[in-house]
């Protein structure tokens, strides 16, 4: 058997490999979670662009608080919602570096709304990766600013009541209005085709940073099997039917 395997495992036969920019740490994410895929895509883009030594990431508070364990680059871990403020200073003091923030919906669209909007409005020359799964995963499935109307969460067990909780916020549409943002897009990673498109979008965002094209915002509509209490397959289906209806995929702005 081993002989057969050794026969197969040869560089010329390799069709897929783990990016050098990914560490060997075991991901702490739940099965079916989108974070792992997005991490991998960022790692691949960094590797392909050859910017591992020039990239500084800013991790959020939320499920991806430990993102810094998975990408072999320099990282800063921000207070909840403040990643755009950190990224602002990092980029302004080190304009020769590639800087990105990685944030969830609570981080970017609730507690950090001011930091998000003003970083975008100043046109900070950074990439913001926004994972929107409409729920607070890390703290146990509470309502997010992007939780859909009627969607159940730990702090809205009978569904989001917009008369009480307000409407889900389309922050990406809002940010696309600001002159400071360059490329603003909404993607997903639920199918191989979608994964390829998201990777293309990330690559474009990092390339745009090199060209000083303002704030690049990549929203990735994502699943949270645990928070949604669905299997990964069900979660993907639920996302397609419900999340995409409210958060349609595609480019919102490309300047």
């Amino acid at each position, binding site marked *: 058997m081993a002989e057969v395997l050794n026969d197969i495992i040869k560089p010329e036969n390799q069709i897929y490999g783990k990016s050098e920019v990914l560490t060997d740490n075991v991901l702490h994410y739940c099965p079916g979670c989108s974070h792992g895929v997005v991490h991998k895509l960022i790692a691949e883009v960094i590797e392909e662009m050859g910017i591992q030594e020039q990239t500084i990431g800013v991790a959020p508070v939320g499920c991806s608080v430990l993102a810094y364990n998975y990408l072999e680059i320099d*990282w800063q*871990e921000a207070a909840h919602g403040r990643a755009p403020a*950190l990224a602002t200073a990092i980029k302004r*003091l080190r304009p020769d570096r590639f800087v990105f923030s990685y944030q969830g919906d609570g981080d970017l669209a609730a507690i950090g709304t*001011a930091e998000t909007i*003003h970083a975008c409005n100043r046109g900070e020359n950074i990439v913001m990766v926004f994972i929107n799964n409409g729920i607070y995963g890390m703290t146990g499935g509470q309502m997010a600013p992007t939780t859909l109307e009627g969607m159940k969460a730990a702090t809205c067990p009978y569904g989001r009541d917009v008369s009480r909780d307000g409407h889900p916020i389309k922050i990406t549409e809002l940010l696309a209005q600001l002159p400071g943002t360059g490329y603003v897009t909404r993607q997903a990673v639920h199918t191989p085709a979608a994964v390829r498109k998201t990777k293309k979008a990330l690559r474009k965002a990092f390339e745009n940073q090199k060209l000083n094209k303002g704030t690049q915002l990549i929203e990735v509509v994502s699943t949270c099997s645990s928070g949604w209490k669905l299997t990964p397959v069900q979660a993907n289906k639920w996302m397609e039917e419900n999340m995409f209806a409210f958060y349609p995929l595609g480019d919102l702005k490309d300047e």
Partner: protein
Amino acid sequence: MRELKLMKGNEAIAEAAIRCGVDGYFGYPITPQSEIMETLMAEKPWETTGMVVLQAESEVASINMLYGGAGCGKRVMTSSSSPGVSLMQEGITYLAGAELPCVVVNVVRGGPGLGTIQPAQSDYFQSVKGGGHGDYKLIVLAPNSVQEMADFVELAFDLAFKYKNPALILSDGVIGQMMEKVELKEYTPRWTNEEIEKISPWATTGKGAHRGRNVITSLELEASEQEKVNHRLQAKYKEIEKNEVRCEKFMCDDADYLLVAYGSSARICQKSVELARENGIKVGLLRPITLFPYPVNEINALADQVKGILSVEMSAGQMVEDVRLAVNGKVKVEHFGRYGGAIPSPGEVVEALKQKIIGG
């Protein structure tokens, strides 16, 4: 030739920042310290030294910009006044937890709440006892003149980098707004990125091939590991207490009574000492220059000599607790203060000394 200028304390902070090679200032306007950013913006240091100056959207953002900049090994600072510094407490505890060097200036005004824009010293507890969550300490310097406002910027950065800890310059509306003669230092160039790699090898400057990745974080989910982090921090604070106490004594040698005061109160008390001595009362003044570390031993030693101590602050009585801890029951310690923006007169202090200590 030395360059003598007449300037406000706030302006002196800004000038000193440019001259001592600060890389970035991030702030939000609030009275009585807005001249700091106004001066920086007018001076345009980005055209000369390359210093970045940015008006942030809030104090919350500006303190987190410090985190980002300090994490890159840059010399970054912010300034604000009491309500704004309250907003910064979150960022400050993260900076302390992640052991990032930076400088925060608080030009204190009266509180609580929106309070008043007039000078006060009622942020002592917030500054020296840890205004945010968790067990941490800031290095706290208390200037009492415009010259010290200028000088302490560099000193604060030196200490912040020596101990990888945020340093706070605790000033107030009097020192910030008044003008005095100040001698400014020569320009020191900012550190180059190559120098930063050597000075702060922990900084996130981009993971070079020669080292592993650097991660700036205050998170450690494992309790046993987080306890180790805390042990390290506490050991560092002990080291700071051992090495960095600074204070000034004024007419203490023959003193029967002692005033303890910092910042603008110390200036007022200096006059009180003169007034009291004109009336035949031998009073001395001890002025803590560092509020953390506090001059515990110096005050304790003077407690053997004097008959009583009056702690004078523009607060309802905050630092007096540290004076009492230092004196440890040896002599009577009382507090005298005006607060909410009111400033005690030198004469009032002498009266309080007579009533609370000498007569009491």
